[in-house]
């Protein structure tokens, strides 16, 4: 199943930001903060409404010399969509 947009975009209702004091990326939103693990942060940084899901996967596989990460990317994006992070 996939109702994900082909070109996922981080919702303007969330702010993705690197927190120096925590040494990690977080999502900030009204009265909340999601502390992201490194792979979630890498994926969400690329959700700009221009890159495609396939493009994000390819880019991450090249950048981290990894293979077969499509299911992980898909799962994170679906989770993000469910939680309103992704438009």
């Amino acid at each position, binding site marked *: 199943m996939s109702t994900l947009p082909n070109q996922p975009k981080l919702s303007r209702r969330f702010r993705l*930001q690197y927190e120096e004091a925590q040494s990690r990326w977080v999502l900030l939103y009204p009265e909340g903060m999601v502390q992201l693990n490194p792979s979630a942060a890498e994926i969400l940084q690329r959700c700009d409404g221009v890159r495609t899901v396939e493009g994000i996967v390819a880019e991450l596989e090249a950048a981290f010399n990894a293979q077969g990460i499509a299911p992980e990317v898909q799962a994170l994006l679906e989770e993000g969509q469910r939680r309103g992070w992704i438009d």
Partner: protein
Amino acid sequence: MAGSTEPTGTAPAIGQPLWLLAELTYQCPLHCVFCYNPTQHARINDEMSTAQWVDVMQQARKLGAAQLGFSGGEPLLRDDLEELVQEAHRLGYYTNLITSGVGLTPTRAQKLKDAGLDHVQLSFQDSTKELNDFLSHTKTFDLKQRVARLIKQHDWPMVMNCVLHRHNLPHVGKIIEMAVALEAEYLELANTQYYGWAWINRDHLMPTREELQEAEAVVNRFRAEQEGKTGPRTRVLFVVPDYFEERPKACMNGWGSVFLSIAPDGLAMPCHNARDLPGLQLPNVKDTSIAEIWQRSNAFNAFRGDSWMKAPCRTCDERHKDFGGCRCQAFLITGDATEADPVCSKSPHHEKVVQLVKQAPTRRSIPIVFRSDAESRLLHAEPNA
């Protein structure tokens, strides 16, 4: 004081003050009967300067603070609010204006937008003009509707906050409808927490269990209808009415864990109601650094970890889940801030909470007290003054 015997608990790990609450002023044009501000607010009038607030924000940001709420009182009464928001934005805070809406004119809204304000939490007292205006003792209902539209015009995510009690619990369905119509992203239905003015007025505010259950059923029906809907929607948060629970709330996510509140006069508190706790010696940002306050002050360490706990908390397997509940509530109801929150059915004082609920309807001949400077002075008159 706390935990002076048998230090068998784990040493408290000191985290980061991720949430900074800046209570800029205790002054407020509203007179809400359930306000949680300290009832002695009228005697606290040495408000900090712009430069002092800027310094607080800079220090806290370095320590990890990321969420920043500008609150009060009514923060819009400070004419340096725009300046503070601008500095907060520059520092990388996610900024929240917690307001009654009074003073949010189109001009100021534009200035706050330009300064980088991230979102607005707007309070409402009810879905009806009559009750809204009665409970706040002001004619503000229409103004709040206008302000809500203004907030949306500026594309801010809007949290609508409505404090619930026996007078408006039957209107929860209408309150939700109003929030949806005003396109609020979040509706916080905050069952009254009994501190400050709400504690004084508790008998007038206390609902019955049935009233609460009916309201919660309405909320659950709305949530079920929203399930699977796409597009913009209103998320409803239902803050639990803890007097009716068997276990306490995880107050402040644990004392000195993530939350740092600074009062108008610079008093630093692990909880915005901690001013009244005896023996705490709360530090002040005017003479002590935030790092010192957060890491080393006695007040912030008083209830960190679990070594301060008494029975039944000390050996309870839920103590790292609810942290013993609320210290202020323990003090208000048992007279001892180191007791378990008496909301907990394991507390030897739990019956006191049951009685507070049960006796409320029989105690309504006591007049309701609207929050005001005059009432504040009456309640906290200097002896022999």
